[in-house]
């Protein structure tokens, strides 16, 4: 009986030690979900995945082409911020619409949402020509517009290349909108994108430029 008791205690002890070691070795991970707009072209979308996988520690990459949902995990001891994730997506030439991070400790972080007040009496709607090619261009153009203070709505037509923008004229001008478009890679009739910014666009977004 004594021998049996000792055996049971020894077995429990090994089990306890084993569990503790396993917990110590388990790497805690944060879960990242990024809604990426304009993932219509598989060649570029797979490229986004490939470029992210180059970050050492990125695992479990999943891309849902239909919804644009991009998921991955990253070691919790090297946490990425929402801004870092979104700038990585943007640097790869894509557009992060919304990011949610579920930290290993259970906390959740999200992209900041724009809060603004518009002067309804000063709202103006105008159309401007913005160069671009595809759904990814559209996502980038919309995001750039929506990020601007004073913008009410933006809509870029992929066929006509016309951007219809409604803005608060007491805060910004249409020239500001053109500058912003050029800043993110899209020429307008009056503003040209810097060559290095244009070159950094994904292949499908590199529209034919006018001299």
């Amino acid at each position: 009986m004594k021998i049996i008791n000792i055996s049971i205690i020894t077995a429990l002890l090994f089990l306890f030690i084993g569990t503790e070691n396993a917990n110590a070795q388990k790497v805690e991970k944060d879960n990242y979900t990024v809604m990426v707009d304009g993932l219509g072209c598989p060649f570029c979308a797979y490229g986004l995945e490939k470029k992210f996988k180059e970050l050492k520690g990125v695992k479990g990459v999943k891309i849902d082409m239909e919804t644009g949902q991009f998921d991955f995990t990253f070691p919790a001891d090297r946490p990425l911020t929402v801004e870092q994730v979104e700038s990585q997506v943007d640097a790869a030439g894509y557009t992060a619409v919304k990011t949610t991070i579920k930290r290993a400790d259970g906390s959740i972080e999200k992209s900041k949402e724009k809060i603004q007040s518009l002067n309804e009496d000063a709202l103006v709607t105008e159309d401007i020509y913005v160069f671009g090619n595809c759904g990814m261009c559209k996502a980038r153009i919309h995001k750039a517009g929506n990020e601007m203070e004073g913008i009410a709505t933006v809509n870029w037509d992929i066929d006509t290349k016309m951007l219809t923008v409604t803005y608060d004229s007491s805060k910004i001008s249409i020239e500001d909108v053109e500058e912003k478009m050029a800043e993110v890679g899209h020429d307008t009739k009056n503003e040209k994108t810097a060559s290095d910014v244009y070159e950094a666009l994904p292949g499908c977004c590199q529209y034919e430029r006018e001299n």
Partner: protein
Amino acid sequence: MNIMKNIYYFILLSLLLSSCKESGPAWTFEKEIDISGAAPIGIDIANDEIWISDGDNSRLLKMDMDGNILVEEKDFERPMHIAIDGESVYIPSYGTDAIVEYKNGLRSELILKDSLDAPAGVDVLGKEMAIADFYNHRVIYTDGSNWLSVGEKGNGDLEFHYPTDVQMVGDKIYVADAYNNRIQIIDKSGKHVKNMGKEEKMNAATGIFVDGEFIYITDFEHDRVLLYKHDGQFIAELKEGLQKPTDMVIYNDKLYITNYKSQSIAVYKI
């Protein structure tokens, strides 16, 4: 009298010109094979079996001619434009920068003399192989012993902008020069032969197929396939039943076109 003579000459000239005008093969849309659940990038057919690379789900699929799955091979890393040679299927593994040979249920990675960055298309003829090296903006060719790298990023001759597919015919290599929106033809010694397709304003020339008479190219964003003669003359446009086409092949006088968006294969007949 002179006016009558001029009219006569004009009619004669018109008749002569119209008789010289080339017409392409009379492809007509026959049906769409539903392959729901698969987002096809590449296609090839042999022995009445359709092989599909399913990019989104990282699978290689073998199907019967009705689209019923016979073999499902998982865990490829974004397989792209495949090629069949003999009993082997060659798969460019975009995510792992490798060319994988699949034969009799076994996989092996080919040993290459150069490093790839996202291979998007491959063609194999015996010992010969051509690869579209997407992020390196070049085409790699080997005759089995010597290796040749052709191209760099750009839009001139012997420059590529994300090549996505290749096919070898005779002494030439035909390239889907995707975001230059054109077909570029080089020879196997690395010399430039011809560019074509710029006038049709494609948006992402993603897949290419070449036979003795014509060159076929998928225009991904415009939901169409364009046909050219080998001299560069534009012949026809196919649109019916196409939604984000990625690749095509002719088998037993039928043209099979993969639809990435609608997850189907459009079939055209003569």
